[in-house]
C-alpha cells in the first residue's frame, strides 16, 4: 500500500512538482496500478538480458558533429557559448 507521503517522496526525488489535490489522486491510482503489477510476484527469476546484444563500440575518432550555434539555438539564455542554468547551491 502506497501512502500520500510515499508519492510525495518520489515526486521530490524525481523533481516532479505535485499539488496536494493531485497527491490524493495519484496515490489512489498508484495503488490500483501497483496492485495490477503484483501479478509479476509469481514470476520466477530476475533481470537478465532480453535483447541478445553486446556493447557496440567504434574507434575514438572525431566525426562531424553539430556546430556550437546549432547546439545553442534552442537554449533560452545562452551567453558566450555557455548556457545559464538555475543555481545549484
Amino acid at each position, binding site marked *: 500500500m502506497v501512502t500520500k507521503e510515499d508519492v510525495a517522496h518520489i515526486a521530490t526525488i524525481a523533481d516532479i512538482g505535485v499539488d496536494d489535490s493531485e497527491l490524493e489522486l495519484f496515490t489512489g491510482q*498508484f495503488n490500483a496500478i501497483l496492485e495490477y503489477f503484483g501479478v509479476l510476484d509469481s514470476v520466477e527469476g530476475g533481470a537478465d538480458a532480453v535483447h541478445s546484444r553486446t556493447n557496440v563500440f567504434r574507434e575514438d575518432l572525431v566525426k562531424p558533429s553539430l556546430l556550437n550555434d546549432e547546439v545553442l539555438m534552442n537554449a533560452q539564455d545562452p551567453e558566450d557559448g555557455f548556457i545559464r542554468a538555475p543555481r545549484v547551491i
Partner: protein
Amino acid sequence: MGSTFTFDHDDPNNAFITICRQADYGDGPLSGIPVAVKDNISTAGIETTCGSKILKGYIPPYDGHAITLLRSAGAAIIGKTNMDEFGMGTTTENSAYGPTRNPADPTRAPGGSSGGSAAAVASGLVRMALGTDTGGSIRCPASFCGIVGLKPSYGRVSRYGLIAYANSLEQIGPLAQNVRDCALLYSVIAGYDPRDGTSLELPPPAPLKPEIAGKRIGVPTEFFGEGVDLDVASVVRSGISRLEDLGAEIIPCSMPSMRYALAAYYVTSMSEASSNLGRYDGVRYGTAPDSFRSWHDAYSQIRKSGFGEEVRRRILLGSFALSAGYQGKYYAKAQAARRMVRDDFARLFRTVDMLAGPTMPCVAFRLGETSDPLSMYLADILTVPANLAGVPALSVPCGTAHNLPVGLQLIGKHYAEDEILSAALAFEEGSA
C-alpha cells in the same frame, strides 16, 4: 530535380501540430508524395514538440535518420502529426495541442499514440505517414482508423533522432491507406545506421507480392481472452477464416506469458521513461527555468507546468519501480517476464510462420470516454507482446464492429516483415 509540393488542405480532425504548406522534394521512389511525420521524430528546421508543452518552440538542428532517408527518397514532408505526449497514451487525447478526431467517426478518438498520423492517412490528407510504436502506438490507431500500420522488428529502423520514451521497446514505422504503400514506406526507412547502436545489418526488404497459401498461422487462445469485445472477436475470427480460405493453415495454440505481458510492459516502459525524460530541465531547450530559484525548485516547477498528467504519472511510477527496495519486486521481475514472452514467441515460431488475432480488444473509444489510467493501459494487452519480444507486427483492416473499423494483427518472426506484409497483401487483395 528539385520541386515544391503545396499543401492547401484544412485539418478538420486536428491531425497536425505543425503543417508545412510548402514542402520541397526531389527524385526517388517517393518523389512528390506527401508524407506526414509523427511529432517525436526530429526534423531539421521544423518544430518538434512530442505533443508536449515542455518542447513548444523546439527546433531540431538535425534530421533523424528516417527523415534523411525520406528526403533522399524524394518525399515531401508536409507536417508533424499530433500524438499523446511523448507517446504515452492510447487515444491521442494526452496531447498539449488538443485531441485528434477519428475520421471514421469524429466523436471518437483515433487511437494512439500515433493518432495524428493515422487520422491524416485515413482522411486522405496524405498517402502515408511515419509513426512510432512503443507498445502498440502504430497498430492501435491503424486499427481504430481502418488503415494499415507496421511496427518493424527492433533494430530494423534507426532510432537516431527519435526522441526517446522507452528505448528498448520503440521503433519507427509506416502507416498507409493500403499494404502496398505501407511496404513502400517501410522499404525506404529500413536499414542499418551506425548512429543507432541497436541498429542491425540485414538484407534489404524483398519486393512485395501477395503470398499466404501454405503458411502456418498460429492463433493463441489468449488473444481472444477476457476483455476482448465479442463483436470485435467475431469480425477477427471471420478474417482468420478468410486467411484459411486463401490457403493458410490455421493452428490453435497458447501463449501463457500473456498473463504477465502488460505488467512487464508498463513497468519497463515507465522505468525507461523516468530516466529518459530527466533531460527536460528547460536549460538546453524548451521552456526556460526560473534562474532565480534553486535548481531542484526550478526543475520541479518547470516539469510540473510543462508535462501533462499522464507523463508525470508515468515518471513517478517509473521512479518508484526503480527505487531502493522495489527494483527487485518490479523492474527485475518485469525483465524475467519479458524473457518469458520472448521464449513463448520462439517456441511458437518453431511450428508456425506467424500469429494472428485482433490488434485491439475493442473499437475506437469515444472522446473523453475514460479517465482511469489502469483501464486505459489494459487496452494495450494485445499489442505489447510484440514490443517486449522485438518481433514485427502489423494491423490490417478486416471489417467493422459497432460500425467502426476493426484491425487484424499479424505478428511475424524476427526480421520477417516481408512475410507478414505479403500475407497482409494477400488478405487485403483477397488473393493468395
